[in-house]
Every structure is written in C-alpha cells, then in structure tokens.
C-alpha cells in the first residue's frame, strides 16, 4: 500500500474507533466591525495600531500622494539616495519622480535598492495590518521584502475593521503578505528589536478619499 493510501486508511480507522462525528461550527464572533470601510474612526485606529508597531504614518489628500512619498524618501534615504523602485502598476500620480519601476531583476540586485514603493490590497484597522497581494499595484513579494525601506500607499476606502472583513476581500490564490509593522524580533530576552530580515523601516501613506 502506498503511504498515501495507508495514512488515509489509518485516519478512517482512527475516526471509526473514536466514533468521531462531524459537528456544526458556531461562528458567534464579530464578522463585521459595523463601521463601513474608510470610516474616519477606522483610519484613526489603523494609524494608532501602526504607530504602536513603530511604523511611520503620513496622511495626505488624493492629489498629494507622489509629493508625500517623495518627502518620506528624502527623509529616509538622504539627498544622494540609493535607487528607489516602485511596483510596476503603481499609479503614476502616486509615483515620485526619479523612482524606477521594478523590472523583475534578480534578488541580489533588488537587495541593493534603497527603498520600495508599493500599493496595498486591503488594510485591517483593529490589528494594524496591511495586506499585499502580489498584483501589479503591490508588486512581487520580494519587492516589499529586500530593500531596507518600504513605503506602502493605502487608500482610505481599503481600510476595513477586522480580520474577517479583510479575508473576504482577498483572493486566496494570490500569494499574500500580511504586514503589521516593520519586521521585528523579541528573541533576545523578549526585548523588541525592529528590522531583522525584512525592511527595517515601514512608512505608510494613508490617502484620504476624494
């Protein structure tokens, strides 16, 4: 018997012996926050949570995105900065002048870039989480991983209350990355250190609705 057949047979025998019966799964927890996406309270909550993780949050209007991103990059990287790469599908009005587009270069070269600029698929206010879906606006996964500074642009209408509302808006078949603050470790005496292998700095540009 193949390992597959044998394991499946063992499971059936075990469930038979234990007289396992399938039960209903109750879902009495909150599946919706009650506030619609982009509600001003959700934006405040998201900002509060992100700052708690030591990410920097910058708010701006829909016309000011490129300028805000530009300001963040100048502050983070200094005047003669290393190359900045934007996700291939990042809207032009969000992309600062001087930023290149990710051209699918090998990881070693991506690692040499100073910063990445990406969009976001959905943001979760209660947990301070941005979800990137590897589409054209968010870019491939390595883009938001290798450069030391990551700038993510979030539209107000993408901000939902809780985890259930986020999952129902996402495509499980896309490679997803849930980002809650910069990478961090608490492995040494539980003291939190930001920035281990992922970007050491996370900037979030939160764009008000038009």
């Amino acid at each position, binding site marked *: 018997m193949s*390992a597959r057949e*044998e*394991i*499946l047979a*063992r*499971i*059936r*025998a*075990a*469930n038979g012996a*234990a*007289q*396992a*019966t*399938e*039960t*209903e*799964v*109750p*879902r*009495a*927890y*909150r599946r919706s926050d009650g506030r619609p996406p982009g509600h001003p309270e959700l934006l405040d909550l998201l900002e509060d949570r992100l700052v708690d993780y030591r990410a920097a949050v910058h708010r701006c209007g829909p016309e000011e995105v490129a300028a805000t991103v530009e300001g963040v990059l100048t502050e983070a990287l200094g005047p003669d900065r290393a190359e900045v790469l934007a996700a291939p599908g990042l809207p032009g009005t969000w992309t600062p002048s001087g930023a290149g587009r990710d051209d699918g270069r090998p*990881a*070693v070269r991506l690692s040499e870039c100073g910063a990445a600029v990406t969009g976001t698929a959905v943001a*979760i206010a209660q*947990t*301070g989480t941005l979800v990137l879906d*590897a589409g054209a606006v968010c870019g*491939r*996964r*390595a883009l938001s*991983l290798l450069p030391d500074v990551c700038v993510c642009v979030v539209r107000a209408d993408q901000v939902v209350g*809780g*985890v*259930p509302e986020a*999952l*129902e808006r996402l495509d*499980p*078949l*896309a*490679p*997803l*990355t*849930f980002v*809650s603050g*910069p*990478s*961090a*470790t*608490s*492995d*040494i*005496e*539980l003291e939190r*250190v930001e*920035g*281990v*292998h*992922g970007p050491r700095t996370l900037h979030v540009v939160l764009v008000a609705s038009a």
Partner: protein
Amino acid sequence: MSRTFLGMPGIPHGTGNLGGEEPFPRSAARHLADHQMRANLANATGTIRAKRASVVSELPDWEELRESGRAVKEATMARLDEHLVELERRVTERGGTVHWARDAAEANRIVTDLVRATGAEEVVKVKSMATQEIGLNEALEEAGVTAWETDLAELIVQLGDDRPSHILVPAIHRNRTEIRRIFLETMPGVDPDLTDDPRQLAMAARAYLRERFLRAKVAISGANFAVAETGTLAVVESEGNGRMCLTLPDTLITVMGIEKTVPTWRDLEVFLQTLPRSSTGERMNPYTSTWTGVTPGDGPGEFHLVLLDNGRTAALADPTGRQALHCIRCSACLNVCPVYERTGGHAYGSVYPGPIGAVLSPQLTGVEANPSLPYASTLCGACYEVCPVAIDIPSILVDLRGRQVESDRRPSAERIAFGAVARVMSPPRLWRSAQRLTRLGRLLARGRATLPAALPPPLSKWTRTRDLPTPPSETFTRRWARDHGDRT
C-alpha cells in the same frame, strides 16, 4: 470510561525527537538547579503572560473565537481524510507536488531526495516544529547537506550547539551576554566590538543570514495552516526570515503535520485573530505569508508539500487524546505553566515541551515510550484557561496517567491508585461508598488540615512529596442532596 485506551492495533506510533533519555522527574531536578535559566525563564514568561492578557482582553468576542477555533478543529479531524485529499488536489492543480510520509524516517528520506535532486549542498530553513520532531537537520547532514536555521532564536540555538527550550522563543533560556559570546565564538566575520545590546546582536544576525538567503537554491519550511478548499498554505512569523525562505529560493519544500489542515479559507479568520494574541501577545505578528502552489514570476518555481503522519493517526484514534491534535502551537500554555516556568523546556526531553508537550508527545510515541511526561504537571488547569482552541489538557493528562499505569505491569502506588479511581468512578454506587471511605482519612488526620506525611508503603511514595488535604466531613453530593432536598 471503564476501559483505558491503549492504542489501536495497526496504527503505529511516531518516532523522532519526542522523548528524553531520562524520566521527567530526574531531568527536571537537574534543570531546576540551573539558576540562570530559571531567572531568564521567569522574566520571559512573566512578560509574555502580561502582554497576552492585555491584548486578549481587547477582544469582546474572545470566548466566541475560542469556541469557533475548537469547533473548526474538531470538525476537521472528523473528516480529515477528505480534507487531505482535497488539499492534495488543489495544491497539485496549482503546480505543487504532494508527498505522504508515514513516519519520521520516510519524511526525511523524501526531503533528502528532493534536495539531492536539485544538486544543492545547503538549504535555508524557517523554524518548524515538524522538522525538529523528525530530526531533519541531522538527516540532511548525513546526506552531506547543510541546513541553516534562519529564525534568530533557532540560529542562537544552532550556533550554540544547543537544543530549543520553548516552542516560540527557542532560546528563551539564553540571556544577552550568553548570546553575544556565542556569536563572537561562532559567527565568521563578526565585528569583534559587538556589544550585548539586542539591536546590535540582531543586526549581526541580519548581515550573517542575508548572504545565505540570497544564494540559497532550496528552502525548507513548516506551515501553520493549510486550507483544504483552496490549497493555500500559511506561515506566521515575525522577523522576515520566513518571507525570505518562501520567496527567494527556486525550490520550496514544506513539511507539515496532517493535523494542520483547516477546511475553508474563512476558518483562517478565527486563527489569524487568536494565534498572534496568544503567542507573542501582539494584535498581529509582523508577517504572515500565504501561498497556493506555484505563482509564475513570483517566488519558487517548484513547490513540494510533505504531509506527515508520524503518530498523529495513533493519537486520532484516542477519543480523549485526539484533542491534542487541535493545538495551533501558540505556546500560551507553556507561559502560564508553573512547572514549565521552573524546569524549562529541556526537562521535557521532547521538541514539544510544557503542558501541550506533556500530552502530545506521549500520544505520538505511545505512552509506554514516554511514561513520565503525563506527570509533568500539577493539574492546576491554567493551560486550559489560556488555550485558544480550548484543549482540555488536564483531562488528557489524567487519562494518560491512567493509561500509563495500566500499561506498566509492575505494581506501583500510582498503578493501584489510578486503576482504582478508574474502576470506582464509573458505577455511581461504588463511587459513593468510596467517598464514605474518605472518612477514614479524617480519622487519620486528627483535625489537622492535611493528612500525615507518611502513609504506609506503597502509598508513602505519593505522600512523601505531597500534602493530601484532609477529606471534608461531608461529600459534595451529600451536601447538595441535603441543601436541595434531592435524592442522589
């Protein structure tokens, strides 16, 4: 429950790093003498406990989430065969390859062959309990392949030639001074002026590992969840080493216990809320990655999923103990356990320490191979209170003790006592007469709060280390009957 469960014929137990060479009481006594470790542990577990309590209290629907989590796991196990077949179908549809491993040796062989086929001589690894359980690193080493652990704590453990002592913070027993020393002694090219500041230590690890991530051709990971209906795998982490492993190499091999399956995408909405709050005490961990098979142009071009049994089906056959398979490895039960806090993880001998280890390890190996672990607990119940999937660890422990006693042919005080309890608790009439017998105990106590320390042998083995409360003058059932005018 008149018959204790002694395993199912035909369903073999697991092998691997699931038990120590010496019984728990002896290794615990040795580890108790390590004052440095005890101080580190008390500090660390105290901090996580407080953080967890604070973020859990933020969620008004915590109990509902906990109940749903428990129910999802129970429902999954009842039809695990169907869910695994569905998972296999979805992963395959999306370009992945699924392998099945009956035990540790088979899983090691599958992974080693897959790595060999790529020609790689090294692999990067993201922390995974399953691969520790099967001893994969050692198997790879024998085949001439070097496995680099990339989780900071695992790296500390690996460089220090040590063993992990906590599910989530494997180097919890090491303080910053010790870590600095390990790095200075073992990390090639490390700055000799390295201080013991955690930030500096973390940056040393970043530089050391970045190079390895960029050149690695093969990565090996575990998985926190696998969604059957979509074929989606999920890894929950903090440092970004997981993302590096899941994204950069050409080949990804994921080794996963069959019990990690959940039926639907929607089920993740429960665990993605309860797991981070229970484990690190965060609202959400820094990074969670999900992927489904292979995505052209993004990440590894080749994906292998190894589904591991290694004793899980044997545990599944146990009506009480199968609950242990619901564990999502958050480690909350370790952090609240008074025994764990004092002995540390190494005393348990298994890669699964603490309360969950005390029930899971003997279920996977069979209790005969791990006879002392079910006693590594005071049955205080704190583990059950914090468990995000409501595993009744104390009940499983009691059940396992009964089974251990039954499987051991030599007469011992426990054997007599637990055997008697099991027999007597079933028919109500016997139970009531046994309760009346406790009046004898009151006579022995002569009005003091505890029974005299020395009962005659073999019972002296029990009372030497325990204060037995003097039995109350009236049993609960009698009192209930009196107060409520009810007959029992």
